[in-house]
């Protein structure tokens, strides 16, 4: 790929991220291939082989090893990245907690794909939703540009001294990863300046100052305090994420927040949604607005930490909020996003109704019609003024 481009180029989402990784030029990348992430790793492997980057590239034998090796590299003092999807993410699970608790600023691209079984290779968010309590920061992108932009920003956020916590950034499998879309690429020097040099904290390779990483310190040790410290870093990261986004806006003109409201100020009904479906939802909002319906939406950007106060502020004036989950939390009151949004609005007075919608599992198509149906439920609920049941409503579920 050429080094600089004035205007947008056409790339797949995975190409966009591989390009971001080239510009970041991390010290170590360890990965195992899995659809739909494979292209990222493959393109990167080619760049390594061609000498386009200085990275040590490790072709490990599983994702469990990928994350283990990433932890080793990061603890050793290297700027470390990896990428995965679905089952690979699930296989990393025990290490996700380890990476976060060691406070290693690893950055991972996760291309969202459904979890088995039955086996399914298409998009939903059940993989990363399963890692939401692992202690990683989670940033979801909507399109190609955001995949690239979030990748760059993740490095800054993870390495910030107030955070020092791994960050995963996501985009939708196939819809973004494999489809071609527009991307504006920054100049290499600009990225280098933005990212800055890597600063290792207590690296194991500093042999003059040996450290022990992750030991058991007993029943009466500091485990509990350690966990609280992790959560404090989460709290501090709200500001860091915003500061980094603002700085990024200065060099790119592209603005990001923790969440992204759209036509929400005077909205009476609104949908909260993650990922590429935000684009479709925005279109539906415009259509409804043209009909005089006061519809709005919020796109979720940062899911961990969850900016609940910002959501309360953004949505408290809305009568009925529909939350669209592309993952389910079996046996819970609703999908993971629904639970967050409903909890965030609990203290609002008057309290908006919050209704759960589940869509797109295993890559099931989501059409504008389906989103209109969801809005119709919200509209009807708002009009009736009654409490609607909070049972899940499934969009585009087959009847037969």
């Amino acid at each position, binding site marked *: 790929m050429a080094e600089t481009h004035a205007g947008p180029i056409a790339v797949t989402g995975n190409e966009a991220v591989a390009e971001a990784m080239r510009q970041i030029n991390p010290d170590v990348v360890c990965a195992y291939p899995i659809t739909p992430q494979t292209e990222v790793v493959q393109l990167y*492997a080619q760049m390594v082989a061609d000498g386009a980057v200085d990275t040590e590239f490790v072709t490990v034998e599983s994702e469990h090893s990928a994350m283990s090796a990433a932890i080793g590299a990061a603890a050793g003092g290297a700027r470390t990245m990896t990428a995965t999807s679905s089952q690979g993410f699930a296989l990393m699970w025990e290490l996700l907690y380890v990476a976060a608790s060691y406070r290693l600023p690893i950055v991972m691209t996760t291309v969202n794909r459904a979890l088995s079984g039955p086996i399914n290779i298409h998009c939903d968010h059940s993989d990363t939703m399963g890692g939401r309590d692992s202690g990683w920061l989670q940033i979801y992108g909507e399109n190609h540009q955001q995949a690239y932009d979030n990748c760059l920003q993740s490095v800054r956020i993870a390495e910030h001294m107030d955070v020092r916590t791994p960050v995963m950034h996501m985009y939708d499998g196939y819809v973004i990863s494999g489809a071609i879309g527009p991307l504006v690429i920054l100049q290499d020097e600009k990225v280098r300046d933005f990212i800055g040099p890597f600063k290792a904290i207590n690296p194991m390779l500093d042999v003059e100052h040996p450290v022990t990483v992750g030991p058991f310190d007993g029943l009466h040790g500091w485990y509990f305090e350690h966990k609280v410290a992790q959560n404090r870093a989460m709290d501090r990261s709200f500001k860091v994420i915003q500061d980094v986004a603002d700085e990024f806006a200065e060099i790119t003109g592209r603005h990001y927040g923790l969440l992204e409201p759209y036509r929400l100020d005077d909205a009476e009904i609104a949908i909260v949604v993650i990922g590429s479906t935000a684009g479709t939802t925005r279109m539906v909002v415009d259509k409804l607005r043209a009909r005089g319906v006061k519809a709005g939406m919020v796109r979720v950007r940062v899911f961990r930490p969850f900016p609940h106060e910002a959501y309360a502020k953004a949505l408290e004036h809305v009568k009925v909020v529909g939350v669209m989950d592309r993952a389910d939390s079996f046996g819970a009151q609703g999908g993971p996003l629904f639970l967050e949004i409903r909890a965030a609005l609990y203290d609002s007075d008057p309290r908006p109704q919050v209704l759960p919608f589940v869509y797109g599992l295993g890559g099931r198509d989501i059409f504008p019609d389906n989103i209109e149906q969801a809005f119709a439920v919200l509209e009807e609920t708002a009009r009736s003024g009654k409490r609607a049941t909070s049972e899940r409503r499934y969009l585009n579920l087959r009847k037969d």
Partner: protein
Amino acid sequence: MSEVLDIEQFLHTERLPHIWCPGCGNGIVTGAFLRAVLDLGLVREKTVVVGGIGCSSRAVGYIDLGTVHSIHGRALAFATGIKMARPDFTVVVLTGDGDGAAIGGNHFIHACRRNIDITCILFNNQTYGMTGGQVSPTMDPGDRGTTAPYGSIEPSFDLCRLAEAAGASFVARGIAANIRPLERLIKQGIQHKGFSFIEAVVPCPTEYGKRNPPAGVIAMLDDTKARSISVTAAAKMTPDELRDKIVTGILYEDDEAPEFQSAYAAIVERAQAGAAEAPARPKQPAAPRKPRKTAPERPPARNGEAADASGLPLEGGE
């Protein structure tokens, strides 16, 4: 022709056409396996086939026996559970070099070590075909993969030697280019009581073949055929002569090695008999495990000194 029709009873013909590329060797091995099933008179009610994830593992999706399309790397672990629950079942694992030897390598050596009565057919195409041709643990150094565009620098596994060293009591290798002998090996593996490992060397013309010579399916098949050599013939060759050769046939067989499920049943029986009479905490330690029957003194096949254990006709090189 009638044989083709006969194995159709074990195929989900409604799911065809399959996903495999033209020229892929997976169908050949699947066919060989199904003919073995047919010849051995295995019944659907008592035969379970477990696949992992990969083009090769995908075979289970087309097979109309009891099948589990499990997850990447864990087919042998699933199969172990099935065999323990139903020792009377014939349990077969279809896996690939990535599935069985990379991500699932740990389960592989432990299934061998336990010598559990499962037959594992590993389709070795020396790459991760399904994800687009990355380096696999059986890819030869110097071969190209998408994660090693200028050639792999990693040494590769000889899976048959690994299986034997880890404790498998039946170890064989066949090639897709030589169907009948492969079929016989599969049959013998299924009949053998204990862990049977059969490596089937298959061409992946799409992902492996497009980066590595020789180009083209026919050339790939001819090449494996030319390089394959029976254990009998290999025994008479020098290491130099054996370089790049694919030694086929039964490489190791031990009919006496204790099989896991039988050992398990025996100890259950002993414990239950003992529980009736003996105090809850026996004073005597349990009898030591019968020592493993040591393998016949036999240097690895690669060294060209392999004993002729197969009794099979020459499989390749003719």
